[in-house]
């Protein structure tokens, strides 16, 4: 804290930066006032960062405990001990060898990938029309999209289930969840529309002047420009499908061959009621893909979350 202003400014030490700035600004006044300002800045820095550190610890510790338990021996996992006495990496192999586990993986991937593909393809044209075409009932259509978005899935599940089960005999599979996604998803339409609104009209007009049809304009001009928005929507939909529990419970419960990871995990826990280590390993294996996808697509994701709320 006694370092001269000039050297603190050049030092890259994180704590020093605000101090240097404060001192420089305060140097016009008396040196005592400058020191006092510097001290409050340092204290403020320390306070804010310690609170953040404590909170961050609380956010990360659950993952740490889950991981540590996942590599414990069967007997130790039942005790209250926190640190593994010996490291049992084979727990992960055991989880993979659980009957059904690989099938659940395959089903989850199929649901998430097909669901995402269908949703994106069917929602883009709708969002484009809602964002850029002028037609009567545009506002009503938008209101209906938002209402659908707000609707709890449990409201319409009963008759939908009866249709899929009795008319199409598709219960026991994930198709009743995937097929509707080929007909636009309200939330995706809403998000894409918000994004498309930010693209200036001039691009479409110049494409039209060049003789592009609407579909060509959309595919050649708009889609490439809307890539960040599309990426965000695709990510959200992928996560939605991957995390979905209610859907698979309704349609796939009778047929373990159609279960997804999210649905299977709970039965895994029931079957291994005392094997907390295996359950924790399975839990991490379900979290892993989502978190890996996040780190690769962090920017698109955060942009998407922001898009939902900040168009104020």
């Amino acid at each position, binding site marked *: 804290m006694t370092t001269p202003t000039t050297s603190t400014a050049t030092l890259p030490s994180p704590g020093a930066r*605000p101090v240097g700035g404060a001192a420089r600004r305060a140097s016009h006044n008396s040196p005592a006032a400058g020191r006092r300002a510097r001290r409050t800045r340092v204290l403020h820095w320390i306070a804010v960062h310690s609170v953040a550190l404590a909170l961050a610890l609380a956010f990360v510790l659950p993952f740490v405990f889950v991981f540590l338990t996942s590599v414990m021996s069967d007997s130790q996992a039942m005790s*209250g001990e926190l640190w593994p006495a010996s490291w049992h990496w084979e727990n992960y192999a055991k989880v993979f060898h659980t009957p059904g586990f690989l099938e659940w993986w395959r089903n989850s991937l199929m649901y998430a990938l097909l669901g995402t593909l269908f949703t994106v393809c069917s*929602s883009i044209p709708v969002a484009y029309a809602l964002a850029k075409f002028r037609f009567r009932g545009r506002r009503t259509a938008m209101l209906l999209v938002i209402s659908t978005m707000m609707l709890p899935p449990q409201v319409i599940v*009963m008759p939908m*289930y009866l249709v899929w089960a009795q008319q199409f005999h598709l219960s026991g599979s994930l198709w009743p969840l995937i097929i509707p996604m080929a007909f636009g998803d309200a939330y995706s339409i809403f998000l894409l529309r918000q994004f498309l*609104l930010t693209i200036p009209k001039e691009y479409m007009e110049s494409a039209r002047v060049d003789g592009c049809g609407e579909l060509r304009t959309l595919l050649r001009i708009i889609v490439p420009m809307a890539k960040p928005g599309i990426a965000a929507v695709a990510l959200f939909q992928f996560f939605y499908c991957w995390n979905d*529990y209610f859907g698979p419970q309704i349609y796939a419960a009778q047929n373990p061959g159609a279960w997804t990871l999210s649905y299977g*995990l709970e039965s895994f826990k029931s079957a291994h009621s005392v094997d907390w280590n295996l359950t924790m390993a399975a839990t991490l294996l379900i979290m892993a893909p989502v978190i890996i996808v996040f780190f690769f697509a962090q920017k698109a994701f955060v942009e998407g979350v922001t898009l939902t*709320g900040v168009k*104020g």
Partner: protein
Amino acid sequence: MALSLSGAGARTGDRTPRGGDALLRRKKTRDRLRTLGFLSPWLVGFSVFFGYPLIATVYFSFMHYNQIKEPEFVGLRNWSYVFTQMPLFGPALWNTLWLVVVMVALRVVFGIGIGLLVTKLKSGVGFFRTAFYVPYLAPPVAATVAFVFLLNPATGPVNEVLAAIGIDGPNWFNDPAWSKPSLVMLSLWGIGDLMVIFMAALLDVPKEQYEAAELDGAGPWARFRYVTWPNITPIVMFAVVTGVVQTMQYYTQALVAGKLASGVTIGPGTVIQPGYPDHSTITVPQLVYQLGFQNFNTGAACVLSLVLFAIAMAVTILLMRRKSGLLSAED
């Protein structure tokens, strides 16, 4: 300027001879068909996967239907059954409302707090942001399983740590008084989405307003109250409304937590009452599932669905009324 130009354009359009008029009409028809074409996936989806089931739900709410025999008209009997005789309706509605009020309020306050904290940080912002964000990504089932383990009263790490510092930890998911607060903790762990939204909103507050407030001698609280708050109210409103809608659908975490926690104490093979312990975690959506898919009481399930629908619609209308950003940038 732009207005007068378009006005002139329209007038010349009026003056065009009859041939041009037909051309214009043909263009209009073409435009309408084009719009219909682009909207068609959603038009089909909306009528088949929203319109139809909604009408069918109303229809079934007046029917006795066990999904085997033909539906039979019973008038308002399902409605009176749900509202007056069904023992779980009261707890489910109470729990759902409790969660809507407490969870949404705490999540919004905590989200603003974390957002403020992260925007105040001078170093390690990337690390902290990621730490606060990643739990939001944990699939709900996995996060719930993890929390049931962490909060296991006998051997869970949380109570171990509490015991080490001399605190006798509560029974968390196994205690009716603590089960909902435990679910709230789980939801606060997944604060990441709100943090990102509030961070963006907080960074959007004009710096000059803070500087002006500081010149006027405003302390930290006054700066928050008179500068930050008015600037972020639309986002707060948005977070509240979407939070209410999400919490009304609250299903997976409550169901999984109840099931797993009950398994820990009663052991496998026991018939599990929904909403363990003591119906303290049963929510309206769980009851819809219970009635429709386990008791095959289609009519009563549809009545409950409609109750849920009515509340959701009321909230949505509120959302449309208040300017919360959803319908902004309309033109």
